[in-house]
Protein backbone atom coordinates (compact mmCIF):
# COMPACT_ATOMS: atom_id res chain seq x y z
CA UNK A 1 0.00 0.00 0.00
CA UNK A 2 3.03 2.23 0.25
CA UNK A 3 3.86 4.54 -2.58
CA UNK A 4 7.22 3.38 -3.88
CA UNK A 5 10.22 5.66 -4.09
CA UNK A 6 10.14 5.47 -7.85
CA UNK A 7 6.48 6.49 -7.95
CA UNK A 8 7.16 9.37 -5.59
CA UNK A 9 9.98 10.61 -7.78
CA UNK A 10 7.78 10.35 -10.86
CA UNK A 11 4.96 12.26 -9.17
CA UNK A 12 7.52 14.82 -7.95
CA UNK A 13 8.92 15.28 -11.45
CA UNK A 14 5.56 15.68 -13.10
CA UNK A 15 4.59 18.27 -10.47
CA UNK A 16 7.88 20.01 -11.04
CA UNK A 17 7.36 20.22 -14.79
CA UNK A 18 3.80 21.36 -14.52
CA UNK A 19 5.13 24.63 -13.10
CA UNK A 20 8.20 25.25 -15.19
CA UNK A 21 8.79 28.97 -14.64
CA UNK A 22 8.44 28.68 -10.91
CA UNK A 23 10.76 25.69 -10.91
CA UNK A 24 13.41 27.52 -12.93
CA UNK A 25 13.31 30.60 -10.70
CA UNK A 26 13.60 28.47 -7.61
CA UNK A 27 16.46 26.47 -9.04
CA UNK A 28 18.34 29.65 -9.85
CA UNK A 29 19.17 30.42 -6.23
CA UNK A 30 20.70 26.99 -5.72
CA UNK A 31 22.55 27.13 -9.04
CA UNK A 32 24.26 30.38 -8.03
CA UNK A 33 25.17 29.14 -4.57
CA UNK A 34 26.66 25.86 -5.76
CA UNK A 35 28.45 27.56 -8.62
CA UNK A 36 30.10 30.12 -6.36
CA UNK A 37 31.27 27.42 -3.96
CA UNK A 38 32.89 25.44 -6.74
CA UNK A 39 34.46 28.44 -8.46
CA UNK A 40 35.84 30.14 -5.36
CA UNK A 41 37.20 27.03 -3.71
CA UNK A 42 38.88 25.82 -6.88
CA UNK A 43 40.21 29.25 -7.77
CA UNK A 44 41.83 29.72 -4.39
CA UNK A 45 43.27 26.23 -4.50
CA UNK A 46 44.54 26.78 -8.03
CA UNK A 47 46.22 30.08 -7.12
CA UNK A 48 47.83 28.51 -4.11
CA UNK A 49 49.10 25.54 -6.11
CA UNK A 50 50.51 27.73 -8.81
CA UNK A 51 52.29 30.06 -6.37
CA UNK A 52 53.76 27.04 -4.67
CA UNK A 53 54.92 25.78 -8.03
CA UNK A 54 56.53 29.14 -8.72
CA UNK A 55 58.41 28.91 -5.43
CA UNK A 56 59.61 25.42 -6.24
CA UNK A 57 60.83 26.71 -9.61
CA UNK A 58 62.81 29.36 -7.80
CA UNK A 59 64.70 26.92 -5.63
CA UNK A 60 62.20 25.34 -3.32
CA UNK A 61 61.02 25.99 0.20
CA UNK A 62 64.46 25.69 1.81
CA UNK A 63 65.66 28.88 0.18
CA UNK A 64 66.57 31.96 2.25
CA UNK A 65 67.17 35.29 0.54
CA UNK A 66 69.24 38.14 1.99
CA UNK A 67 69.00 41.54 0.36
CA UNK A 68 68.29 45.24 0.63
CA UNK A 69 65.80 46.25 3.31
CA UNK A 70 63.64 48.86 1.65
CA UNK A 71 61.78 49.58 4.85
CA UNK A 72 64.92 50.74 6.68
CA UNK A 73 65.99 54.34 5.99
CA UNK A 74 69.57 53.90 7.27
CA UNK A 75 70.13 57.15 9.24
CA UNK A 76 73.69 56.15 10.27
CA UNK A 77 74.65 55.39 6.69
CA UNK A 78 75.78 51.85 7.35
CA UNK A 79 76.90 49.66 4.46
CA UNK A 80 73.95 48.01 2.85
CA UNK A 81 76.19 45.35 1.37
CA UNK A 82 78.78 42.87 2.61
CA UNK A 83 82.30 42.86 1.30
CA UNK A 84 83.81 39.50 0.45
CA UNK A 85 85.55 39.29 3.84
CA UNK A 86 82.32 39.89 5.76
CA UNK A 87 80.51 37.47 3.52
CA UNK A 88 83.03 34.71 4.25
CA UNK A 89 82.66 35.48 7.95
CA UNK A 90 78.91 34.95 7.72
CA UNK A 91 79.33 31.83 5.64
CA UNK A 92 81.68 30.31 8.23
CA UNK A 93 79.16 30.96 10.98
CA UNK A 94 76.48 28.86 9.32
CA UNK A 95 78.15 25.55 8.47
CA UNK A 96 74.74 23.80 8.72
CA UNK A 97 73.58 25.56 5.56
CA UNK A 98 73.71 23.37 2.51
CA UNK A 99 74.96 26.14 0.24
CA UNK A 100 75.58 29.85 0.49
CA UNK A 101 75.78 31.79 -2.72
CA UNK A 102 76.50 35.47 -3.09
CA UNK A 103 75.82 37.46 -6.20
CA UNK A 104 77.47 40.64 -7.33
CA UNK A 105 75.38 42.22 -9.99
CA UNK A 106 76.82 44.94 -12.09
CA UNK A 107 73.37 45.70 -13.41
CA UNK A 108 72.91 45.75 -17.14
CA UNK A 109 75.98 45.50 -19.26
CA UNK A 110 76.68 45.46 -22.97
CA UNK A 111 78.04 42.18 -24.27
CA UNK A 112 79.25 41.54 -27.76
CA UNK A 113 80.37 38.70 -29.97
CA UNK A 114 81.76 39.90 -33.28
CA UNK A 115 79.25 42.37 -34.60
CA UNK A 116 76.39 41.11 -32.38
CA UNK A 117 75.75 43.37 -29.41
CA UNK A 118 73.18 42.65 -26.71
CA UNK A 119 72.44 43.62 -23.15
CA UNK A 120 72.66 41.17 -20.31
CA UNK A 121 72.76 41.12 -16.53
CA UNK A 122 76.28 40.40 -15.36
CA UNK A 123 76.58 38.50 -12.09
CA UNK A 124 79.63 37.56 -10.08
CA UNK A 125 78.87 34.22 -8.42
CA UNK A 126 80.44 31.31 -6.57
CA UNK A 127 80.50 27.71 -7.93
CA UNK A 128 77.55 26.83 -5.61
CA UNK A 129 75.11 28.99 -7.53
CA UNK A 130 73.47 26.37 -9.84
CA UNK A 131 72.82 24.00 -6.94
CA UNK A 132 71.09 26.68 -4.88
CA UNK A 133 68.96 27.79 -7.78
CA UNK A 134 68.34 24.17 -8.79
CA UNK A 135 69.27 25.28 -12.22
CA UNK A 136 71.21 23.04 -14.58
CA UNK A 137 73.83 23.76 -17.19
CA UNK A 138 72.64 22.62 -20.60
CA UNK A 139 75.95 22.96 -22.45
CA UNK A 140 79.52 22.92 -21.17
CA UNK A 141 80.13 23.42 -17.44
CA UNK A 142 79.64 25.95 -14.65
CA UNK A 143 82.32 28.03 -12.87
CA UNK A 144 84.65 25.94 -10.65
CA UNK A 145 86.79 26.67 -7.60
CA UNK A 146 89.79 26.66 -9.92
CA UNK A 147 88.21 29.46 -11.95
CA UNK A 148 87.68 31.34 -8.69
CA UNK A 149 91.23 30.94 -7.43
CA UNK A 150 92.82 31.80 -10.77
CA UNK A 151 90.37 34.63 -11.45
CA UNK A 152 89.83 33.16 -14.91
CA UNK A 153 88.21 35.19 -17.66
CA UNK A 154 85.35 32.73 -18.23
CA UNK A 155 81.56 33.15 -18.46
CA UNK A 156 78.43 31.05 -18.40
CA UNK A 157 75.49 32.60 -20.30
CA UNK A 158 71.72 32.30 -20.31
CA UNK A 159 69.86 30.59 -23.13
CA UNK A 160 68.38 33.74 -24.68
CA UNK A 161 71.80 35.43 -24.83
CA UNK A 162 73.19 32.30 -26.45
CA UNK A 163 70.55 32.46 -29.17
CA UNK A 164 70.98 36.15 -29.75
CA UNK A 165 74.78 36.09 -29.86
CA UNK A 166 75.49 32.74 -31.47
CA UNK A 167 72.27 31.45 -33.04
CA UNK A 168 72.67 27.75 -33.65
CA UNK A 169 76.44 27.77 -33.83
CA UNK A 170 78.75 26.00 -31.42
CA UNK A 171 79.24 28.23 -28.39
CA UNK A 172 81.63 26.52 -25.99
CA UNK A 173 85.12 27.97 -26.38
CA UNK A 174 83.89 31.07 -28.21
CA UNK A 175 84.62 34.50 -26.80
CA UNK A 176 82.46 37.43 -25.81
CA UNK A 177 83.48 40.96 -24.91
CA UNK A 178 82.34 42.81 -21.78
CA UNK A 179 83.81 46.16 -20.77
CA UNK A 180 86.61 45.74 -23.34
CA UNK A 181 87.76 42.43 -21.89
CA UNK A 182 87.39 39.09 -23.68
CA UNK A 183 85.89 36.16 -21.81
CA UNK A 184 85.70 32.55 -22.89
CA UNK A 185 82.23 30.97 -22.83
CA UNK A 186 82.48 27.75 -20.82
CA UNK A 187 78.76 26.92 -20.46
CA UNK A 188 75.14 27.74 -21.21
CA UNK A 189 72.37 27.56 -18.60
CA UNK A 190 69.16 25.67 -19.26
CA UNK A 191 66.21 27.77 -20.36
CA UNK A 192 64.02 28.76 -17.40
CA UNK A 193 60.34 29.06 -17.95
CA UNK A 194 57.27 29.94 -15.92
CA UNK A 195 54.13 30.66 -17.87
CA UNK A 196 51.83 33.33 -16.55
CA UNK A 197 49.10 35.28 -18.21
CA UNK A 198 48.63 38.84 -17.07
CA UNK A 199 46.60 41.75 -18.34
CA UNK A 200 49.48 42.42 -20.73
CA UNK A 201 49.28 38.97 -22.29
CA UNK A 202 50.98 35.65 -21.89
CA UNK A 203 54.56 35.86 -20.67
CA UNK A 204 57.46 33.86 -19.38
CA UNK A 205 57.91 35.29 -15.91
CA UNK A 206 61.45 33.88 -15.69
CA UNK A 207 62.74 35.28 -18.93
CA UNK A 208 65.16 37.68 -17.15
CA UNK A 209 67.06 34.65 -15.89
CA UNK A 210 67.77 33.67 -19.48
CA UNK A 211 69.62 36.98 -19.99
CA UNK A 212 72.05 36.41 -17.12
CA UNK A 213 75.82 36.18 -17.55
CA UNK A 214 77.81 34.51 -14.79
CA UNK A 215 81.43 35.41 -14.12
CA UNK A 216 83.56 34.07 -11.21
CA UNK A 217 83.08 36.57 -8.38
CA UNK A 218 86.82 37.04 -7.91
CA UNK A 219 87.22 37.86 -11.59
CA UNK A 220 84.38 40.35 -11.47
CA UNK A 221 85.75 42.16 -8.40
CA UNK A 222 89.33 42.36 -9.55
CA UNK A 223 89.03 42.87 -13.27
CA UNK A 224 85.89 44.95 -13.87
CA UNK A 225 84.40 48.15 -12.53
CA UNK A 226 82.30 46.14 -10.10
CA UNK A 227 83.17 46.86 -6.49
CA UNK A 228 83.70 44.36 -3.70
CA UNK A 229 80.05 44.67 -2.71
CA UNK A 230 77.68 41.76 -2.17
CA UNK A 231 74.17 43.21 -2.15
CA UNK A 232 72.31 39.94 -2.27
CA UNK A 233 72.98 36.39 -1.37
CA UNK A 234 71.06 33.19 -1.14
CA UNK A 235 71.29 30.43 1.43
CA UNK A 236 69.85 26.97 1.14
CA UNK A 237 68.97 25.09 4.31
CA UNK A 238 69.36 21.32 4.25
CA UNK A 239 65.78 20.60 5.33
CA UNK A 240 62.48 22.52 5.32
CA UNK A 241 62.26 22.16 9.11
CA UNK A 242 65.62 23.89 9.61
CA UNK A 243 64.79 26.77 7.27
CA UNK A 244 63.00 29.01 9.75
CA UNK A 245 65.65 28.51 12.45
CA UNK A 246 68.45 29.19 10.00
CA UNK A 247 66.78 32.35 8.81
CA UNK A 248 66.59 33.63 12.38
CA UNK A 249 70.25 32.79 12.93
CA UNK A 250 71.34 34.62 9.77
CA UNK A 251 69.24 37.58 10.82
CA UNK A 252 71.00 37.87 14.20
CA UNK A 253 74.45 37.47 12.63
CA UNK A 254 73.71 40.28 10.19
CA UNK A 255 72.29 42.48 12.95
CA UNK A 256 75.54 42.00 14.88
CA UNK A 257 77.59 43.00 11.86
CA UNK A 258 75.61 46.24 11.49
CA UNK A 259 75.36 47.37 15.13
CA UNK A 260 71.89 45.96 15.57
CA UNK A 261 70.33 47.87 12.69
CA UNK A 262 68.05 46.02 10.27
CA UNK A 263 70.00 46.96 7.18
CA UNK A 264 69.23 43.66 5.49
CA UNK A 265 66.01 41.96 4.78
CA UNK A 266 66.07 38.21 5.25
CA UNK A 267 63.17 36.15 3.92
CA UNK A 268 62.61 32.42 3.73
CA UNK A 269 60.48 30.79 1.09
CA UNK A 270 59.03 28.48 3.72
CA UNK A 271 57.71 31.37 5.79
CA UNK A 272 56.33 33.16 2.75
CA UNK A 273 54.55 29.98 1.71
CA UNK A 274 53.13 29.53 5.23
CA UNK A 275 51.98 33.11 5.34
CA UNK A 276 50.39 32.73 1.95
CA UNK A 277 48.61 29.59 3.00
CA UNK A 278 47.20 31.14 6.15
CA UNK A 279 46.17 34.10 4.01
CA UNK A 280 44.29 31.91 1.58
CA UNK A 281 42.68 29.97 4.43
CA UNK A 282 41.07 33.18 5.67
CA UNK A 283 40.08 33.95 2.10
CA UNK A 284 38.58 30.50 1.68
CA UNK A 285 36.68 30.66 4.95
CA UNK A 286 35.26 34.08 4.11
CA UNK A 287 34.14 32.94 0.70
CA UNK A 288 32.75 29.68 2.05
CA UNK A 289 30.69 31.67 4.53
CA UNK A 290 29.46 33.95 1.75
CA UNK A 291 28.53 30.94 -0.39
CA UNK A 292 26.81 29.34 2.58
CA UNK A 293 24.79 32.48 3.15
CA UNK A 294 23.73 32.56 -0.48
CA UNK A 295 22.74 28.88 -0.27
CA UNK A 296 20.87 29.59 2.95
CA UNK A 297 19.00 32.41 1.26
CA UNK A 298 18.30 30.06 -1.63
CA UNK A 299 16.98 27.52 0.87
CA UNK A 300 14.65 30.07 2.41
CA UNK A 301 13.41 31.05 -1.05
CA UNK A 302 12.70 27.40 -1.75
CA UNK A 303 10.93 26.93 1.56
CA UNK A 304 8.79 29.98 0.84
CA UNK A 305 7.85 28.78 -2.60
CA UNK A 306 7.12 25.29 -1.31
CA UNK A 307 4.85 26.78 1.37
CA UNK A 308 3.04 28.71 -1.35
CA UNK A 309 2.81 25.53 -3.42
CA UNK A 310 1.35 23.58 -0.51
CA UNK A 311 -1.19 26.33 0.03
CA UNK A 312 -2.09 26.52 -3.61
CA UNK A 313 -2.48 22.76 -3.80
CA UNK A 314 -4.49 22.26 -0.64
CA UNK A 315 -7.40 20.95 -2.66
CA UNK A 316 -5.19 18.54 -4.57
CA UNK A 317 -3.84 17.26 -1.26
CA UNK A 318 -7.44 16.68 -0.14
CA UNK A 319 -8.27 14.82 -3.34
CA UNK A 320 -5.19 12.64 -3.07
CA UNK A 321 -5.99 11.87 0.55
CA UNK A 322 -9.61 11.05 -0.35
CA UNK A 323 -8.52 8.47 -2.90
CA UNK A 324 -6.09 6.86 -0.49
CA UNK A 325 -2.86 8.83 -0.09
CA UNK A 326 -1.45 8.39 3.38
CA UNK A 327 0.16 11.27 5.26
CA UNK A 328 3.57 9.83 4.48
CA UNK A 329 2.78 9.75 0.75
CA UNK A 330 1.93 13.46 0.80
CA UNK A 331 4.98 14.26 2.93
CA UNK A 332 7.19 12.36 0.54
CA UNK A 333 5.66 13.94 -2.55
CA UNK A 334 6.55 17.45 -1.37
CA UNK A 335 9.93 16.54 0.07
CA UNK A 336 10.95 14.80 -3.15
CA UNK A 337 9.85 17.83 -5.10
CA UNK A 338 12.10 20.08 -3.03
CA UNK A 339 14.95 17.63 -3.41
CA UNK A 340 14.48 17.56 -7.17
CA UNK A 341 14.76 21.34 -7.21
CA UNK A 342 17.86 21.53 -5.04
CA UNK A 343 19.68 18.56 -6.56
CA UNK A 344 19.07 19.62 -10.14
CA UNK A 345 20.07 23.15 -9.11
CA UNK A 346 23.22 21.68 -7.60
CA UNK A 347 24.01 19.72 -10.76
CA UNK A 348 23.52 22.75 -13.00
CA UNK A 349 25.63 24.80 -10.60
CA UNK A 350 28.42 22.23 -10.76
CA UNK A 351 28.39 22.14 -14.56
CA UNK A 352 28.34 25.95 -14.80
CA UNK A 353 31.01 26.26 -12.12
CA UNK A 354 33.32 23.82 -13.87
CA UNK A 355 32.86 25.56 -17.21
CA UNK A 356 33.62 28.92 -15.63
CA UNK A 357 36.74 27.40 -14.12
CA UNK A 358 37.74 26.09 -17.52
CA UNK A 359 37.29 29.48 -19.08
CA UNK A 360 38.88 31.53 -16.28
CA UNK A 361 41.69 29.03 -15.83
CA UNK A 362 42.61 29.34 -19.47
CA UNK A 363 42.43 33.10 -19.28
CA UNK A 364 44.69 33.63 -16.28
CA UNK A 365 46.92 30.67 -17.00
CA UNK A 366 46.33 28.81 -13.76
CA UNK A 367 45.51 25.14 -13.61
CA UNK A 368 42.14 24.92 -11.82
CA UNK A 369 41.62 22.03 -9.48
CA UNK A 370 37.87 21.43 -9.60
CA UNK A 371 38.15 17.88 -8.41
CA UNK A 372 35.58 15.16 -7.86
CA UNK A 373 35.55 15.80 -4.10
CA UNK A 374 34.31 19.31 -4.78
CA UNK A 375 31.54 17.96 -7.02
CA UNK A 376 30.39 15.45 -4.39
CA UNK A 377 30.56 18.01 -1.60
CA UNK A 378 28.40 20.42 -3.64
CA UNK A 379 25.87 17.70 -4.40
CA UNK A 380 25.66 16.70 -0.75
CA UNK A 381 25.21 20.33 0.25
CA UNK A 382 22.42 20.75 -2.30
CA UNK A 383 20.66 17.58 -1.10
CA UNK A 384 21.00 18.59 2.55
CA UNK A 385 19.54 21.97 1.71
CA UNK A 386 16.56 20.27 0.09
CA UNK A 387 16.04 18.02 3.12
CA UNK A 388 16.34 20.85 5.63
CA UNK A 389 14.23 23.43 3.86
CA UNK A 390 11.79 20.95 2.34
CA UNK A 391 11.01 19.31 5.66
CA UNK A 392 8.67 21.92 7.10
CA UNK A 393 6.47 22.44 4.00
CA UNK A 394 6.23 18.67 3.57
CA UNK A 395 5.23 18.14 7.19
CA UNK A 396 2.71 20.94 6.91
CA UNK A 397 1.19 19.37 3.78
CA UNK A 398 0.98 15.92 5.34
CA UNK A 399 -0.72 17.23 8.49
CA UNK A 400 -3.60 18.80 6.60
CA UNK A 401 -7.09 17.53 7.29
CA UNK A 402 -8.69 15.96 4.19
CA UNK A 403 -12.18 17.30 4.95
CA UNK A 404 -10.92 20.87 5.18
CA UNK A 405 -8.74 20.45 2.10
CA UNK A 406 -11.74 19.35 0.06
CA UNK A 407 -13.72 22.37 1.21
CA UNK A 408 -10.82 24.70 0.40
CA UNK A 409 -11.41 27.10 -2.46
Amino acid at each position, binding site marked *: *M*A*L*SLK*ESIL*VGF*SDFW*SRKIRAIITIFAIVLGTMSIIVVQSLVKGLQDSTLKWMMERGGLTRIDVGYNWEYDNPRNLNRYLDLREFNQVKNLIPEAEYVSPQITSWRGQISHGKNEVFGNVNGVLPDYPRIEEWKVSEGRFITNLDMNQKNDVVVIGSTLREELFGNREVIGQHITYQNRRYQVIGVMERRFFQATTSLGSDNMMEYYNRYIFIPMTTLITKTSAADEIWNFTIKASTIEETVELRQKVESILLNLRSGEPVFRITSAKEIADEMESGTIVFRIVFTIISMISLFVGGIVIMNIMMATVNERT*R*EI*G*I*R*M*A*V*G*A*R*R*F*DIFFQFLIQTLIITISGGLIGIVLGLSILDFVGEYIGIAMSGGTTMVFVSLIIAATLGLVFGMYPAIKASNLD*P*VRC*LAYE
Partner: protein
Amino acid sequence: MTEELLVTSSIVKDYSMGKIKVRALDGIDMIIKKGDFVSIMGPSGSGKSTLMHILGCLDTPTSGDYFLDGEQVSALSKSRLAAIRNQKVGFVFQTFNLLPHLNIQKNVEIPLIYAGERPRERVKKSIAVLDQLGLGDRLKHRPTELSGGQRQRVAIARALVTRPAIILADEPTGNLDTTSGNDILNIIEELHKMGNTIIVVTHDNNIASRANRILKIIDGKLQKDGSLA
Protein backbone atom coordinates in the same frame (compact mmCIF):
# COMPACT_ATOMS: atom_id res chain seq x y z
CA MET B 1 -28.35 -9.78 -0.38
CA THR B 2 -28.67 -9.66 3.36
CA GLU B 3 -25.06 -9.00 4.17
CA GLU B 4 -24.58 -5.94 6.34
CA LEU B 5 -21.94 -3.84 4.67
CA LEU B 6 -22.09 -0.74 6.81
CA VAL B 7 -23.25 -0.49 10.39
CA THR B 8 -23.20 2.55 12.66
CA SER B 9 -24.27 2.71 16.24
CA SER B 10 -24.84 5.94 18.18
CA ILE B 11 -22.40 7.98 16.13
CA VAL B 12 -21.81 11.42 17.61
CA LYS B 13 -19.69 14.12 16.08
CA ASP B 14 -18.85 17.30 17.93
CA TYR B 15 -17.03 20.28 16.54
CA SER B 16 -15.57 22.85 18.85
CA MET B 17 -15.62 26.38 17.55
CA GLY B 18 -13.61 28.24 20.11
CA LYS B 19 -15.37 27.53 23.40
CA ILE B 20 -18.67 26.61 21.84
CA LYS B 21 -19.29 22.98 21.09
CA VAL B 22 -21.44 22.17 18.10
CA ARG B 23 -22.97 18.73 17.81
CA ALA B 24 -23.12 17.94 14.11
CA LEU B 25 -24.26 14.33 14.50
CA ASP B 26 -26.29 13.23 17.46
CA GLY B 27 -26.51 9.47 17.70
CA ILE B 28 -26.79 8.00 14.21
CA ASP B 29 -27.79 4.33 14.04
CA MET B 30 -28.05 2.80 10.63
CA ILE B 31 -27.43 -0.34 8.66
CA ILE B 32 -26.74 -0.45 4.96
CA LYS B 33 -26.72 -3.80 3.23
CA LYS B 34 -24.61 -4.92 0.38
CA GLY B 35 -26.14 -3.86 -2.92
CA ASP B 36 -28.25 -1.09 -1.39
CA PHE B 37 -28.84 2.21 -3.13
CA VAL B 38 -29.38 4.70 -0.33
CA SER B 39 -29.89 8.41 -0.49
CA ILE B 40 -29.22 10.63 2.49
CA MET B 41 -31.33 13.76 2.46
CA GLY B 42 -31.41 16.83 4.55
CA PRO B 43 -31.22 20.61 4.42
CA SER B 44 -27.84 22.30 4.56
CA GLY B 45 -26.38 22.30 8.03
CA SER B 46 -28.28 19.13 8.91
CA GLY B 47 -25.09 17.12 9.27
CA LYS B 48 -25.37 15.11 6.08
CA SER B 49 -21.95 16.16 4.83
CA THR B 50 -20.40 15.30 8.18
CA LEU B 51 -22.11 11.91 8.05
CA MET B 52 -20.77 11.33 4.56
CA HIS B 53 -17.24 12.23 5.67
CA ILE B 54 -17.46 9.74 8.49
CA LEU B 55 -18.97 7.03 6.31
CA GLY B 56 -16.19 7.70 3.77
CA CYS B 57 -13.52 7.48 6.48
CA LEU B 58 -12.33 11.03 5.83
CA ASP B 59 -13.24 11.86 9.40
CA THR B 60 -13.70 9.94 12.64
CA PRO B 61 -16.67 10.15 15.02
CA THR B 62 -16.34 11.70 18.47
CA SER B 63 -18.06 8.66 19.91
CA GLY B 64 -19.97 5.64 18.65
CA ASP B 65 -18.98 2.72 16.51
CA TYR B 66 -18.72 2.37 12.79
CA PHE B 67 -18.18 -0.94 11.03
CA LEU B 68 -17.39 -1.01 7.34
CA ASP B 69 -17.21 -4.37 5.59
CA GLY B 70 -16.77 -6.09 8.93
CA GLU B 71 -13.99 -3.80 10.13
CA GLN B 72 -14.28 -1.48 13.12
CA VAL B 73 -13.16 1.74 11.42
CA SER B 74 -13.96 4.23 14.18
CA ALA B 75 -10.81 3.22 16.03
CA LEU B 76 -8.29 3.14 13.21
CA SER B 77 -5.18 5.24 12.74
CA LYS B 78 -5.01 7.88 10.05
CA SER B 79 -2.84 5.83 7.70
CA ARG B 80 -5.09 2.81 8.15
CA LEU B 81 -8.05 5.05 7.31
CA ALA B 82 -6.24 6.15 4.17
CA ALA B 83 -5.89 2.51 3.19
CA ILE B 84 -9.63 1.91 3.83
CA ARG B 85 -10.52 4.91 1.68
CA ASN B 86 -8.28 3.59 -1.01
CA GLN B 87 -9.60 0.04 -1.01
CA LYS B 88 -13.22 0.25 0.10
CA VAL B 89 -14.55 3.70 -0.70
CA GLY B 90 -15.08 5.48 -3.99
CA PHE B 91 -15.91 9.17 -3.79
CA VAL B 92 -17.88 11.18 -6.32
CA PHE B 93 -17.95 14.90 -5.50
CA GLN B 94 -20.20 17.73 -6.54
CA THR B 95 -17.22 19.68 -7.90
CA PHE B 96 -15.68 16.59 -9.56
CA ASN B 97 -12.31 17.20 -7.83
CA LEU B 98 -10.11 16.12 -10.69
CA LEU B 99 -6.46 17.20 -10.87
CA PRO B 100 -6.37 19.84 -13.63
CA HIS B 101 -2.72 19.31 -14.66
CA LEU B 102 -3.15 15.60 -15.34
CA ASN B 103 -4.98 14.01 -18.27
CA ILE B 104 -8.09 11.96 -17.44
CA GLN B 105 -6.38 8.59 -17.71
CA LYS B 106 -3.74 9.78 -15.19
CA ASN B 107 -6.51 11.11 -12.96
CA VAL B 108 -8.25 7.74 -12.90
CA GLU B 109 -4.92 6.05 -12.22
CA ILE B 110 -4.23 7.94 -8.96
CA PRO B 111 -6.05 5.59 -6.53
CA LEU B 112 -4.22 2.65 -8.11
CA ILE B 113 -0.87 4.38 -7.54
CA TYR B 114 -1.62 4.60 -3.81
CA ALA B 115 -2.81 0.99 -3.92
CA GLY B 116 0.69 0.05 -5.05
CA GLU B 117 -0.33 -1.45 -8.39
CA ARG B 118 2.18 -1.89 -11.18
CA PRO B 119 2.15 0.81 -13.88
CA ARG B 120 1.03 -1.56 -16.62
CA GLU B 121 -1.91 -2.82 -14.54
CA ARG B 122 -2.85 0.73 -13.66
CA VAL B 123 -2.98 1.85 -17.25
CA LYS B 124 -4.95 -1.23 -18.25
CA LYS B 125 -7.51 -0.86 -15.48
CA SER B 126 -7.97 2.89 -15.86
CA ILE B 127 -8.49 2.60 -19.61
CA ALA B 128 -10.98 -0.23 -19.10
CA VAL B 129 -13.09 1.83 -16.67
CA LEU B 130 -12.99 4.93 -18.85
CA ASP B 131 -14.02 2.78 -21.82
CA GLN B 132 -16.92 1.43 -19.83
CA LEU B 133 -18.03 5.03 -19.16
CA GLY B 134 -17.72 6.00 -22.81
CA LEU B 135 -14.57 8.11 -22.49
CA GLY B 136 -12.16 5.67 -24.13
CA ASP B 137 -11.43 8.11 -26.95
CA ARG B 138 -10.43 11.01 -24.67
CA LEU B 139 -7.77 9.45 -22.49
CA LYS B 140 -5.23 12.19 -23.16
CA HIS B 141 -7.64 15.06 -22.59
CA ARG B 142 -7.25 17.32 -19.59
CA PRO B 143 -10.37 17.74 -17.41
CA THR B 144 -10.70 21.37 -18.58
CA GLU B 145 -11.15 20.13 -22.14
CA LEU B 146 -14.28 18.17 -21.18
CA SER B 147 -17.89 19.12 -20.41
CA GLY B 148 -19.22 18.95 -16.86
CA GLY B 149 -21.04 15.69 -17.50
CA GLN B 150 -17.90 14.16 -18.96
CA ARG B 151 -15.84 15.34 -16.01
CA GLN B 152 -18.26 13.74 -13.60
CA ARG B 153 -17.97 10.51 -15.57
CA VAL B 154 -14.18 10.69 -15.14
CA ALA B 155 -14.74 11.14 -11.41
CA ILE B 156 -17.02 8.10 -11.37
CA ALA B 157 -14.38 6.15 -13.23
CA ARG B 158 -11.84 7.16 -10.61
CA ALA B 159 -14.22 6.00 -7.85
CA LEU B 160 -14.83 2.68 -9.58
CA VAL B 161 -11.30 1.79 -10.60
CA THR B 162 -10.33 0.19 -7.28
CA ARG B 163 -13.60 -1.83 -7.19
CA PRO B 164 -14.62 -0.35 -3.82
CA ALA B 165 -17.16 -1.89 -1.46
CA ILE B 166 -19.14 1.34 -1.43
CA ILE B 167 -19.58 4.39 -3.66
CA LEU B 168 -20.25 7.68 -1.91
CA ALA B 169 -21.64 10.45 -4.07
CA ASP B 170 -22.04 13.95 -2.64
CA GLU B 171 -24.53 15.97 -4.72
CA PRO B 172 -23.19 14.35 -7.91
CA THR B 173 -25.46 16.39 -10.18
CA GLY B 174 -25.24 19.65 -8.24
CA ASN B 175 -23.00 21.32 -10.79
CA LEU B 176 -24.62 19.86 -13.90
CA ASP B 177 -27.43 20.83 -16.22
CA THR B 178 -30.53 18.61 -16.29
CA THR B 179 -29.50 16.52 -19.28
CA SER B 180 -26.03 15.64 -18.08
CA GLY B 181 -27.40 15.33 -14.54
CA ASN B 182 -29.84 12.68 -15.74
CA ASP B 183 -27.04 11.05 -17.68
CA ILE B 184 -24.99 10.75 -14.46
CA LEU B 185 -27.99 9.46 -12.48
CA ASN B 186 -28.56 6.79 -15.14
CA ILE B 187 -24.96 5.73 -14.82
CA ILE B 188 -25.33 5.53 -11.03
CA GLU B 189 -28.48 3.43 -11.40
CA GLU B 190 -26.67 1.22 -13.85
CA LEU B 191 -23.85 0.74 -11.35
CA HIS B 192 -26.40 -0.18 -8.70
CA LYS B 193 -27.93 -2.78 -10.99
CA MET B 194 -24.48 -4.25 -11.51
CA GLY B 195 -24.34 -4.90 -7.76
CA ASN B 196 -22.53 -1.88 -6.39
CA THR B 197 -23.52 -0.42 -3.05
CA ILE B 198 -24.24 3.28 -3.44
CA ILE B 199 -24.90 6.15 -1.07
CA VAL B 200 -25.95 9.48 -2.55
CA VAL B 201 -26.09 12.58 -0.44
CA THR B 202 -28.51 15.14 -1.85
CA HIS B 203 -31.19 17.64 -1.04
CA ASP B 204 -33.00 16.96 -4.36
CA ASN B 205 -36.14 14.81 -4.11
CA ASN B 206 -35.91 13.69 -7.74
CA ILE B 207 -32.50 12.21 -7.15
CA ALA B 208 -33.45 10.71 -3.84
CA SER B 209 -36.46 9.04 -5.40
CA ARG B 210 -34.24 6.91 -7.60
CA ALA B 211 -32.75 5.23 -4.52
CA ASN B 212 -34.41 2.22 -2.93
CA ARG B 213 -33.99 3.75 0.53
CA ILE B 214 -34.14 7.33 1.73
CA LEU B 215 -32.55 8.41 5.00
CA LYS B 216 -33.59 11.85 6.20
CA ILE B 217 -31.34 13.74 8.54
CA ILE B 218 -32.26 16.88 10.43
CA ASP B 219 -30.19 18.51 13.18
CA GLY B 220 -27.84 15.58 13.30
CA LYS B 221 -30.54 12.96 13.80
CA LEU B 222 -32.02 10.43 11.42
CA GLN B 223 -35.71 11.19 10.94
CA LYS B 224 -37.07 8.45 8.83
CA ASP B 225 -35.94 5.37 7.05
CA GLY B 226 -38.14 5.08 4.02
CA SER B 227 -37.26 1.69 2.75
CA LEU B 228 -38.50 1.49 -0.80
CA ALA B 229 -36.90 -1.74 -1.86
